[in-house]
């Protein structure tokens, strides 16, 4: 039997095959289909069009619906779309619906999914959102798909998958103070480019990866798609298994690759050489050390999203903002309700994160959702409308991404976004 990477092994197992190799087109059994308010209604439309009005989903427990994109808006169609999800959940009697306006609402799907125990090592997850690659952080094969594929999965539980080649990133060394997981992935994307891993699995290993927390692993795998990857994946360690077991009663079997499995390419880094950085407009590969960008005057700092709106992201931001004042509009958008609650209870030197943000002059903490990460309806919190220059902990800086075509976006870590909010220009957090 040929040696296989962990991505290949997970796919082989889910296709009922002893072995697969990159390039094989195989039908894979899906464990979890994730959808949300933006792509769910279209997916449901395709599901009923193709399988009939009376069709039933492949597995009630396998379809997880987390509305998160356009929640806090007056947009009528956005509300209509959540109503469509609501009716579908009722019709199909689905147990996992994180409904807006109820205590079940959880916020951004890519944090809600693991926090509620739907991400398990060794499983296959597909979702109607490109950042579904985030869940490889816990050792699952997880990838973003469109409505048509999702409608197909909804009815059959199966998906046609081309087995990706694996590119391995071995991250050695210890990351320096003030360098975060976001700096690591921006550096990698800067090196390989936005199509540097197209169609491939990005596998992250090495002592620096093993030392990463769950939140940091999510940051790294979340942005695999910004290099074009099909999935990002990190071998689970004991911390991963403990995190998952605390959140699900379901059995799961972690899958690890053969150490000598062939890969398309291997990159080896010493992360002790990494520095705080940004991705300049208008593409995530436009890497620059933060210190080279101090001439960039800012109008806004945005801390939020599945990439940069996790508890540890806010702890990092608060560690910078404690006892300091921001001089530009600073937006704090926790990704999920769980994170929002922890902003109240997590303290640094006796002060809650929420208090630290308030005393620093940040805007009041917004309710959890995708908010301005992708612009959205015109009344979306934090959306740009003019020529605002933004530093943001989100994942994309395409033209118009946060709303206005004329508002340039610099992607950065929460530490750099917070330090820059204090200075009003791009600031390396080591220089504050």
């Amino acid at each position, binding site marked *: 039997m040929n040696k296989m990477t962990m991505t290949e092994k997970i796919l082989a197992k889910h296709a009922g095959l002893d072995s697969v190799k990159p390039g094989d087109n195989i039908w894979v059994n899906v464990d979890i289909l994730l959808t949300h308010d*933006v*792509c769910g209604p279209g997916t449901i439309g395709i599901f009923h069009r193709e399988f009939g009005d009376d069709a039933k989903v492949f597995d009630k427990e396998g379809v997880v619906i987390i509305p998160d994109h*356009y929640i806090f808006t007056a947009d009528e169609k956005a509300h209509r779309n959540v109503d469509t999800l609501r009716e579908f959940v009722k019709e199909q009697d689905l147990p996992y619906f994180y409904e807006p306006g109820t205590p079940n609402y959880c916020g951004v799907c890519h944090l809600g999914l693991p926090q509620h125990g739907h991400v398990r090592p060794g499983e296959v997850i597909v979702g109607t959102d490109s950042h579904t690659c985030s869940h490889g952080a816990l050792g699952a094969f997880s990838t973003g798909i*469109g409505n048509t594929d999702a409608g197909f999965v909804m009815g059959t539980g199966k998906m046609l998958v081309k087995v990706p080649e694996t590119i391995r990133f071995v991250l050695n060394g210890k990351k320096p103070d003030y360098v975060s997981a976001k700096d690591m992935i921006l550096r990698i994307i800067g090196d390989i480019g936005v199509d540097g891993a197209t169609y491939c699995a990005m596998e992250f290993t090495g002592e620096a990866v093993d030392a990463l927390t769950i939140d940091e692993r999510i940051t790294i795998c979340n942005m695999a798609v910004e290099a074009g990857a099909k999935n990002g994946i990190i071998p689970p360690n004991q911390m991963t298994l403990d995190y998952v077991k605390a959140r699900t009663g379901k059995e799961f079997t972690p899958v690890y690759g053969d150490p000598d499995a062939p890969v398309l390419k291997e990159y080896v880094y010493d992360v002790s050489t990494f520095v705080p950085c940004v991705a300049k407009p208008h593409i995530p590969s436009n890497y620059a050390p933060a210190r080279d960008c101090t001439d960039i005057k800012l109008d806004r700092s945005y801390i939020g999203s599945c990439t940069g709106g996790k508890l540890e992201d806010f702890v990092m931001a608060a560690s910078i903002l404690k006892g300091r004042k921001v001089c530009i509009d600073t937006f704090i958008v926790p990704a999920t309700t769980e994170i929002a609650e922890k902003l109240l209870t997590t303290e640094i030197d006796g002060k809650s994160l929420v208090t630290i943000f308030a005393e620093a002059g940040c805007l009041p903490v917004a309710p959890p959702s995708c908010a301005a990460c992708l612009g959205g309806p015109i009344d979306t919190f934090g959306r740009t409308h003019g020529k605002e220059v933004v530093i943001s902990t989100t994942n994309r800086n395409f033209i118009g991404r946060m709303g206005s075509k004329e508002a340039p976006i610099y992607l950065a870590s929460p530490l750099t976004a917070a330090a820059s909010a204090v200075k009003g220009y791009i600031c390396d957090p080591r220089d504050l």
Partner: protein
Amino acid sequence: MKIKAKVYVLGDNIDTDLIIPAQYLNLVPTIPEEYAKLGSYAMAGLPDSEIPYVDQSTGKTPYGIMIAGKNFGCGSSREHAPVALGAAGCQAVVAESYARIFFRNSVATGEVYPFETAAPLTAEFKTGDEAEVDVEAGTITRCADGKVFTLKDLGAVAPVVAAGGMFGYARQVGMIKSK
């Protein structure tokens, strides 16, 4: 099948926010009037200095073929992207390479043919030129002088494209029942 149309020429890394800005993702592609509306917003994310892609009086594009560079469709998994192009009247995209999800969504929906070229064609055409794509022969011809350029074989997805999309293919291979 032959597609004869005017071309619209773009560069590298044309992302899904340019193809269909997130503001319009409240529209649901399976609702016919919203499908048409998505078409009217195709390429609405392009800077305002660019030639408009859609004729606002008709909600359709005069450019039935898109020519682009590397990594076309990067970014979001929004199927609204190939849908918006298809709904606007674009029939084929001819790019040097694609982002994975856009390519897959184009094939799965059958909205546009996603052809790749061996060499970049962005300098061989300018917006407004007439071209003809011959799907079977795998060529694109510049009508002004008859110069023919070769398109890459669609490879493993050719049977899915030929079946009109993922559902047609799955029915052909017996993965799901015929309607």
